């Protein structure tokens, strides 16, 4: 639905060139919720603003629903934008308009009749749970309600794509959850493709189907969300996953921790698995079969894209041969990574 090809955006403040986006290829399949995560300054916001050409790319193609937006005239681009809704971190509602009139704005701009506007806005008020706020002004609403208005407004022109630029970053955790579940509902009910830019791993974990990691203007890793959590490749991805599962650095809980193996040291492994009740039988089986003991250092079950995903950190104790066999047995069945040793 959205395809970015070799996209580059160069800024030149005061003569020195900065590559905010450096040759990005990205493909967002129709109907998915796609997350782009990265630290601040990685170029995420510039990237999403290139998708509806709020920011003009320096080079590359931006295809939305098969149409290359970079080749359109101003007028054609305005028409194409009716197909692309967008919500922002700071909501960007018009303070002089009521909730109803804010949602009606895109339709007014497109020249819709009063009747057509009412027919479109009323169901959106219901969908976003704002039925009783119809006549309120934005200043009278909470942050979460404001973002709901912004979502309803973005949906008014019946877009195929919804762009979310740090849409939950100004909200508290509880409100964030309710906004995310609203986005998921919208994605399912209206079959809208959603592209989300965020620095919060919780957002990716809660609703995204796929995720890309951005760093210094480049996409450095891209995967299905479960695969991303099971098997992150780059250091940055590993860091993000660890922060999402609230993993403590092992050195903090184990004073005897060392990163290199030594004589008599026992391995500490991180086991990642999908589905509850998967790993415990494996561990007991390994313990029985190879005569080893497992010391559980940390354990956590997280819901990733509505699936249970477990993260376990264990120390394997026993004879060296038994330890090796246990490790191999686990590796054959689940995602296992040796992260260090304790002696």
């Amino acid at each position, binding site marked *: 639905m959205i395809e970015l090809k070799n996209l580059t955006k160069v800024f030149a403040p005061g003569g020195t060139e900065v590559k905010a986006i450096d040759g990005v290829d990205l493909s967002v399949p129709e109907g998915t919720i796609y997350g782009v995560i990265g630290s601040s300054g990685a170029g995420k916001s510039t990237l999403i603003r290139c998708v*509806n050409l*709020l920011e003009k790319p320096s080079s590359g193609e931006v295809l939305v629903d098969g149409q290359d937006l970079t080749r359109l005239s101003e007028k054609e*681009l*305005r*028409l*194409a*934008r*009716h197909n*692309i*809704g*967008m919500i*922002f971190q*700071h909501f*960007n*509602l*018009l*303070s*002089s*308009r009521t909730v109803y009139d804010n949602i009606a*704005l*895109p339709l*007014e*701009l*497109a020249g819709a009749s009063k009747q057509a506007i009412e027919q479109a806005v009323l169901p959106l008020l219901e969908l976003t749970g704002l039925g009783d706020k119809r006549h309120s*002004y*934005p*200043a009278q609403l909470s942050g979460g309600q404001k973002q709901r208005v912004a979502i309803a*407004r973005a949906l008014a*022109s019946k877009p195929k794509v919804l*762009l979310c630029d740090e849409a939950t970053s100004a909200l508290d955790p509880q409100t964030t959850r309710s906004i995310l579940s609203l986005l998921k509902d919208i994605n399912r009910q209206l079959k809208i493709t959603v592209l989300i830019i965020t620095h919060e791993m919780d957002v990716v974990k809660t609703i995204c189907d796929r995720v890309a990691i951005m760093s210094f203007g480049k996409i450095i890793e891209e995967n299905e969300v479960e695969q991303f959590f099971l098997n992150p490749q780059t250091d940055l991805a590993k860091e993000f996953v660890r922060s999402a599962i609230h993993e403590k650095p092992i050195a903090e809980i184990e004073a005897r921790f060392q990163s290199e193996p030594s004589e008599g040291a026992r391995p500490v492994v991180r086991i990642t698995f999908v589905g509850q009740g998967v790993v415990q039988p494996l561990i007991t089986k390994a313990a029985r079969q190879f005569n080893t003991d497992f010391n559980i250092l940390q354990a956590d079950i997280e819901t990733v894209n509505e699936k249970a995903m477990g993260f376990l950190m264990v120390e394997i104790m026993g004879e060296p041969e038994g330890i090796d066999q246990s490790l191999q047995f686990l590796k054959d069945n689940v995602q296992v990574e040796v992260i260090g040793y304790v002696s």
Partner: protein
Amino acid sequence: MSADAWSLLFKALWETLYMVAFSGSICFLLGIPLGVLLYVTREGRILENRAANMVLGGIVNAGRSIPFIILMVAIIPLTRLLTGTSIGTTAAIVPLTVAAIPFVARIAEGALIEVPSGLVEAAQSMGASPLQIITRVLLPEARPGLINGMTITLVTLVSYSAMAGAIGGGGLGDLGIRYGYQRFDGVIMLATVVVLIALVQLLQMIGDRLQQHYDRSH
């Protein structure tokens, strides 16, 4: 105060209101669009155009740098062309308007700058044209600021209109100078001052009420 003095005062008040209302209306009609142009052609705004912005800004600055008393005399040919005369209340409207247009333009520009740029972006993302952004987003959102600016302009016009007495413009200022200053009539002088104060208070009050009515930002 004698009946004659009262009628003088009412006539002068009427002339002042006439000058302020007339020049006020015209300068808003021309000054606000000029302010919009100054805003949209600025760097980073929706119709960025350095050359146009510099030319318009230069004209506005030139207009604002001429003292009103000199402007009145300097544009007498224009006044004569538009009103057929260079003396009288109607004639005074021309320099008042000319002086107020650049003033209004800068104030309108300032009110527009206060509108968060995120709103313009949101409108662009909805496919709004530049004209739609101006009429549906910028002007409605800047309305409280614009009303505030209009109040300031009207109050300034009241005091400028007093100077228009210099070209036979009449009005309260003229009355005060001719009777109060030149004839040492303290009563009329005092009455003039009281009426001027009351007029400005009234304008400010109406302006504040309107601004509050339209300000939904808190």
